[in-house]
């Protein structure tokens, strides 16, 4: 016979206002196997927890129902309390009469009725509880950081500085991310490269960091503390162990006119290239789709000599290898930080702005490349059509942000600031420049941000026009921007030499695939969900996988860096534990009744079902508790009903229905 104690919380007035807690405690006290029932003002407070512990000792309770808030809120609090009183921590059920009752029903009679049901259901369920013992699992003291932008770099450095081995995986040929493309950073106008490149060098020189660029995470298996990750190393066609980064090959390559991804099409690069001169590692990569030599070998693998071999010929170290193949390595990690960053909205969706049709309509990231001293124009801002210095420049804010029409109703957060930065920088480059900004609202929440925008307006004479643009079209050798000034209440027409679109932040195009590989969830845009937006902002929904930077949503550099450090702290906290407690609510197969159909094996998302051979060669399923996450898919798939889920057994769940429905209308 079970001995159940019921503890009904008032939660101050949160529950007691709309639920007659005393009546709930009274009625629950009459339920079968309940030997003690009471109510108290704040059950989670120290006196409240003491009350539970004393009742456990005094009435020899063996299971406890706390009728209060959601288990997500206080299950750990109360399971800790009953454990200190000598009970197994899983002999607890929380009846959620706050979030799912008192807060959503104003009528006290209705709330009391429903609470009685919720509590008696919980009581019924606990009757089927058994003590559970989570397995202790080991922790691999290594961390994986995915993404080598500023967030990934910061996270890797912070973790590595604490003496933990880190592997940093970046899919492009160099680390640095979006920040490496930027010219200056707001609001201090620090040179982006000057503050970033030392960190990049630190990464490659750090004894605890292994850097894999031009590599991708292909598959992730395992669980917190024990991840097994397949990393795909794409062929670079250059032996990184031999290459000294002299750059001879780059200059000699006959194929020089390929649009540069790093320069956003504003400049060109050869077929063998490094994205930018300060690339880390300073090892070029050959673009297999453009390189004539590789293409000739792909067409005819038997071929003795490739069609072109100029780089091969001039490489002083014989580092070129046209026949390099992709390789996959498998490594083990205890924790993962995802910092795969963001992409920018494609403005061709706005046909009226003419991006892609008129060469002098460019995006802000293209503007960054034009302004950058190491960029394709050596920092001279020249417009793409005729190479002239633009004098009248129009900025369009919110291109692909705050626009329901484009499926991007959110604010991209950084565009107001980088647009103000561009306006300031352009004036610094050329005092004759006049900038205009079409905006919806100027959002400048951040330290020194509002002042920065005011400077752009007041000191640098940038003309801010509140309104959207309806059309951009060419007239003579300039562009005409037709828009609206909603503050003046009239249409405006601005003649521009150059139009710059402040494209919004959006998730990486493959963010969903990455999330699926990692087994974490993402929102309707593709941004990764935090475990809790306020209190767990760098944890994903999956234990051991942490998040940093704009993979979660639009973020500027300081925010990304602080998040990366936060994620690093979480990783170190996790990896400093000698062992972890595994999932206690796992599935269990009754071998003796298992027919060996292995329907469970097919349905299990974690490959946790193993085959064991019993006497006379009979095969049965067994659950690997280290891999089982307790979803219960196998339980409902089992044809013979021989699998149970600890904590959520068929009996326990059916008992909830039984007490609820088979009994006469509750009070």
């Amino acid at each position, binding site marked *: 016979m079970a001995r159940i104690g019921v503890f009904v919380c008032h939660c101050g007035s949160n529950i007691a206002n709309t639920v007659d807690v005393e009546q709930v405690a009274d009625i629950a006290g009459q339920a079968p196997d309940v030997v003690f029932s009471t109510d108290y003002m704040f059950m989670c407070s120290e006196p409240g927890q003491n009350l539970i512990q004393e009742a456990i000792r005094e009435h020899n309770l063996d299971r406890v129902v706390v009728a209060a808030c*959601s*288990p*997500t809120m206080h299950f750990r609090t109360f399971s800790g309390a009953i454990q200190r009183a000598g009970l197994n921590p899983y002999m607890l059920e929380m009846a*959620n009469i*706050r*979030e*799912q*009752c008192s*807060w*959503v*029903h*104003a*009528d006290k009679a*209705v*709330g009391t*009725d*429903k609470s009685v*049901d*919720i509590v008696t*259901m919980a009581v019924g369920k606990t009757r089927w509880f058994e003590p559970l013992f989570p397995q202790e699992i080991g922790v691999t003291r290594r961390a994986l950081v995915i993404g080598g932008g500023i967030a990934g770099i910061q996270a890797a450095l912070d973790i590595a500085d604490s003496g933990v081995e880190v592997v940093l995986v970046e899919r492009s040929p160099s680390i640095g991310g979006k920040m490496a493309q930027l010219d200056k950073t707001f609001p201090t106008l620090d040179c982006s490269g000057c503050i970033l490149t030392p960190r990049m060098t630190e990464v490659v020189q750090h004894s605890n960091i292994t850097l894999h660029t031009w590599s991708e995470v292909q598959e992730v298996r395992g669980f917190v503390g024990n991840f097994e990750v397949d990393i795909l190393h794409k062929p670079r066609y250059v032996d990184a162990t031999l290459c000294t980064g002299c750059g001879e090959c780059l200059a000699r390559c006959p194929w020089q006119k390929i649009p540069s991804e790093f320069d956003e099409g504003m400049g060109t690069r050869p077929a063998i290239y490094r994205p930018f001169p300060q690339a880390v590692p300073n090892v070029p990569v050959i673009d297999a789709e453009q390189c004539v030599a590789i293409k000739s070998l792909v067409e005819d693998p038997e071929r003795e000599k490739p069609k072109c071999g100029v780089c091969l010929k001039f490489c002083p170290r014989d580092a070129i290898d046209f026949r390099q193949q992709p390789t996959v390595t498998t490594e083990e990690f205890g924790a993962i930080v995802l910092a795969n960053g963001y992409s920018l909205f494609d403005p061709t969706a706005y046909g009226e702005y003419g991006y892609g049709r008129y060469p002098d309509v460019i995006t802000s990231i293209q503007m960054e490349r034009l302004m950058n001293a190491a960029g394709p124009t050596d920092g001279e801002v020249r417009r793409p059509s005729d190479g002239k210095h633009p004098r009248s420049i129009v900025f369009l804010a919110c291109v692909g942000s705050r626009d329901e029409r484009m499926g991007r109703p959110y604010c991209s957060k950084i565009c107001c600031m980088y647009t103000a930065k561009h306006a300031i920088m352009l004036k610094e480059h050329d005092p004759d420049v006049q900038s205009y900004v079409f905006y919806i609202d100027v959002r400048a929440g951040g330290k020194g941000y509002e002042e920065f925008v005011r400077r752009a307006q007041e000191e640098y004479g940038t003309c801010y026009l509140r309104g959207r643009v309806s059309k951009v079209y060419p007239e003579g050798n300039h562009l005409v921007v037709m828009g609206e000034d909603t503050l003046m209440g009239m249409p405006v027409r601005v003649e521009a030499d150059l139009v710059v679109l402040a494209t919004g932040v959006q998730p990486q195009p493959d963010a*969903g695939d990455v999330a*699926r590989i990692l*087994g974490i*969830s*993402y*929102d309707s845009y593709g941004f990764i*969900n935090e475990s809790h937006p306020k209190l767990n902002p760098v944890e994903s*929904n999956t234990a051991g996988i942490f998040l940093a930077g704009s993979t979660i949503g639009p973020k500027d550099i300081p925010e990304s860096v602080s998040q990366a450090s936060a994620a690093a702290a979480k990783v170190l906290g996790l990896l400093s534990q000698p062992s972890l407690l595994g999932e206690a*609510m796992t599935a269990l197969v009754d071998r003796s009744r298992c027919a060996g159909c292995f329907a469970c094996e097919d*349905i299990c*998302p*974690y490959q946790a079902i193993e085959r064991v051979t019993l006497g006379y060669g009979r095969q049965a399923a067994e659950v690997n508790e280290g891999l089982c*996450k*307790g*979803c*219960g*898919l196998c*339980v*409902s*798939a089992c044809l013979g*009903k021989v699998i149970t*889920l600890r904590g*959520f057994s*068929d*009996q326990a*769940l*059916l008992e*909830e*229905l*039984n007490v*609820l*429905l*088979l009994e006469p209308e509750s009070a």
Partner: protein
Amino acid sequence: MPETSFEPRVVGFLCNWCSYAGANLAGTSRIQYAPNIRIVRVPCSGRVDPLFVVKAFQAGADGVMVLGCHPGDCHYRDGNYYTRRRFTLMHAFLTFLGIDERRLKIDWVSAAEGRRFAEVVTEFTEQLSQMGPLSTQASVQVSAGGDQIRETVSL
């Protein structure tokens, strides 16, 4: 029983990660909804055995909801895909039992959709109010096949 005073009994199986959290969000946002639902928390909507639904009807529920994460967002990778397939078949089976298939609602509510949770529950409850109680005739049919079901259910 006059139609107006009929309060349907609704059982909701909610997955722990999305829909149960969505119901909590409705609570923290103080969004009012029909009080008829009694929630059974399950780790994943894929944990819901179709027999639970039969059992709920057999035991007197007028409507059953199974709510999970949106397809593609399952905390356990693909559990809700099984839910979707399983309960598509289940609807046909209910018709066979003589239970109006509209009495079983499968839907997706994310942890961010407190308002949607309230709407889904209220709409379903109103629909059941209009449909009236699960008729005795249907119950007879349930219990006709019920012996066999009960055998399977009582483990």
